[in-house]
């Protein structure tokens, strides 16, 4: 036990003193905050200050004589009378984003043949917006033809929101939002996925380095290979936790500062609201800002944070034990690829499953099973957690995770103790299996 502590301490101190660690730890939040700032700035520019594009409409059909409904970003100027057809192939006039040509045979019952000509290619968003505005204008015309008045049409606009709430056994209601749940779960799962790779690879590199530098034989004449492996894994885990903790603190401070600076300069809530209304955009269906925040604050942060820490630590320990075993079996780091892929398949698979199956049906059979298997549960259970997981399922998953970690670490250690002293032998899966069975 003492030896594990010494190895852990050495790993930790050596790594945190490295220049690369210090630079990455300090630069990480700056990059993250910079990225966050950029998104925030773009979002604000998109909301408030997006340039309005003018579209020259050449309407030969006369359908849009009364104009086309403008959107927040595109305004339609219908030319009347329409210029000669020969001019259709000419670029749009100066000041216009493009030229929308409505052919003679275009009608509200057969709305086909519209063309858009511009010097720059049309973005998907703009194309979609243009089609939406044309459809909306035609729809309004059809309804007027059917005898509905403009005021009646306006009164037809209906917006329904279903507020989702969770009820506990004792009847306590909690606001619940699917988007918020999915977002929170997926962020946690993605971070676990990222950290397992990031720090697991460090363990692998460390083992490969010790093996190729031939330090191993000197060390394991003083301690058991298992102690060396565990010490390394725990040391890197401590480095990871330190780095994550610093990142969280620094990112929080930086993001707060950036939001404050950009926000105070560019965001006037009223202006933002106006901009959103103008742009014809609304917050995603079913989410009102107050509902969103309420759902966010209703998340069980203690459970999520506890779950994140548990599955991050055990998931990392489980996978890094496998990474250590792989590195011990090969002579150089480059030879690890053949073993890396099969080992990381469950991890990659679980992130794919989490994005699709679990988010669609977090309480389904597949999601439940994958949140029980130790190789996939760190990711899948993390996605399920915000949606509410029965206590027994969570407990069972954690017990399986602990036993899975012990079993896999034990097997990995059996490969490690043989592999670490094996040089010049090309290891195969069969060979690794044989090493597990070796005595002593």
């Amino acid at each position, binding site marked *: 036990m003492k030896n594990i502590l*010494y190895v852990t301490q050495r790993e930790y101190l050596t790594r945190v003193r490295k220049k690369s660690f210090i630079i990455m730890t300090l630069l990480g939040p700056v990059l993250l905050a910079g990225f966050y700032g950029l998104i925030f700035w773009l979002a604000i520019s998109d909301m408030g200050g997006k340039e309005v594009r003018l579209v020259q409409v050449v309407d030969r059909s006369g359908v849009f004589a009364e104009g086309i409904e403008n959107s927040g970003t595109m305004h339609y100027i219908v030319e009347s009378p329409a210029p000669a057809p020969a001019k259709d192939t000419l670029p749009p006039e100066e000041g216009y984003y493009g030229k929308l040509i409505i052919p003679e045979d275009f009608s509200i019952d057969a709305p086909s043949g519209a063309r858009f000509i511009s010097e720059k290619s049309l973005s998907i968003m703009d194309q979609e917006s243009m089609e939406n505005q044309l459809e909306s204008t035609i729809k309004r015309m059809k309804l007027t033809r059917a005898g509905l008045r403009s005021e009646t049409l306006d009164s037809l606009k209906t917006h329904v929101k279903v507020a989702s709430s969770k009820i506990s056994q004792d009847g306590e209601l909690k606001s619940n939002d699917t988007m918020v749940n999915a977002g929170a779960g997926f962020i946690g799962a993605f971070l676990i996925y990222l950290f397992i790779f990031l720090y697991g690879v460090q363990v692998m590199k460390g083992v490969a380095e010790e093996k190729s530098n031939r330090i191993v034989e000197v060390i394991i004449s003083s*301690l058991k290979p298992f102690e060396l492996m565990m010490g390394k894994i725990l040391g890197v885990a401590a480095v990871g936790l330190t780095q994550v903790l610093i990142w969280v603190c620094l990112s929080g401070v930086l993001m707060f500062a950036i939001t404050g600076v950009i926000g105070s300069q560019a965001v006037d809530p009223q202006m933002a609201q106006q901009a959103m209304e103008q742009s014809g955009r609304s917050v995603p269906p079913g989410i009102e800002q107050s509902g969103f925040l309420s759902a966010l604050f209703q998340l069980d942060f203690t459970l999520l944070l506890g779950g994140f820490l548990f599955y991050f630590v055990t998931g990392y320990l489980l996978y890094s034990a496998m990474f250590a075993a792989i590195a011990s079996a090969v002579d150089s780091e480059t030879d690890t690829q053949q073993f890396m892929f099969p080992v990381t398949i469950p991890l990659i698979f679980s992130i794919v499953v989490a994005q699709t199956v679990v988010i669609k049906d977090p309480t389904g059979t597949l999601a439940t099973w994958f949140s029980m298997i130790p190789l996939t549960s760190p990711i899948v259970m993390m996605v399920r957690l915000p949606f509410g997981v029965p206590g027994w399922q969570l407990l069972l998953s954690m017990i399986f995770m602990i036993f899975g970690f012990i079993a896999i670490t034990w097997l990995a250690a059996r490969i490690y103790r043989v592999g670490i002293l094996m040089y010049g032998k090309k290891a195969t899966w069969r060979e690794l299996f044989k090493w597990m069975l070796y005595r002593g």
Partner: protein
Amino acid sequence: MLSVNHVSKQYAGKKALDDVSLQAEAGSVLGLLGPNGAGKTSLIRIITMITAPDEGEVLFNGQKMHSGLLSSIGYLPEERGLYRKMSIQDQALFFGRLKGLDTKTCQRELDAWSERLDMTGWKKKRLDELSKGMQQKVQFVLTVLHKPRLLILDEPFTGFDPVNAEIIKQEILRLRDEGAAILLSTHRMESVEELCDRISLINNSRMILEGPVNEVRERYRIHEFALEYSGELPRQGNTWTLISQEHKLDGKHRAVISCEEDQRENKLLKELSDLVHIHSFTEKLPSIKEIFIQTVAEKS
């Protein structure tokens, strides 16, 4: 101190060690010899508990070897290795603590060894800032820092220039005199003759020769004598035959003679001194190198 009893080990159906036994006493140097692949490293790994034997046992001071006793062993493997980016002081602290030393003792011992081996000023340096010879010195110091009672040295002179090799040799002898049992595995036969009290020769995973160096040499005596003389030596005597002769300008000659197995040295010397004037007379015992080659060739 160290007793290896009937140890056998097999890897993937191939025997690495077959019923090997040896003893290493406190205050003596045991040479562990054998051609490449004979099983020396396998035996050392079993003694240091890196691997376990399939059969047999290893006793240390009468106690069955267990992990608690590893702190009494110092092992310098043939393939050296330390952390390249770590300072000498940090490495000493790490390895010393693994061997049960506290921080203060580590520092004190490192200082003492640094002074003794002319390494002062190296403490703060990283290993990759030192030359290969200096790195070898550091590795030796880290092996003996915790004053091991059993010191296992696998090719300890590799990478040293003659001056530093001599320094290390003297340090090994000093440690022996202080009571350590030393197991020396080497292919440098001159070192074996200079340092070892006993040898154990392994070939094809079996122990084929064992005993005190002089006794082994006696055992392999070929009954040849070298003499320096003045006068005329015939080609053959009653109990001996001349093998080679070398004439010198100063009137003293050298010759090697071979005699019958049961011949006594005194009788032979008397017979020779009746014929010529003897200046020196010594038995030509085979060197350990010659014994090594002969034995390994015979057993192969």
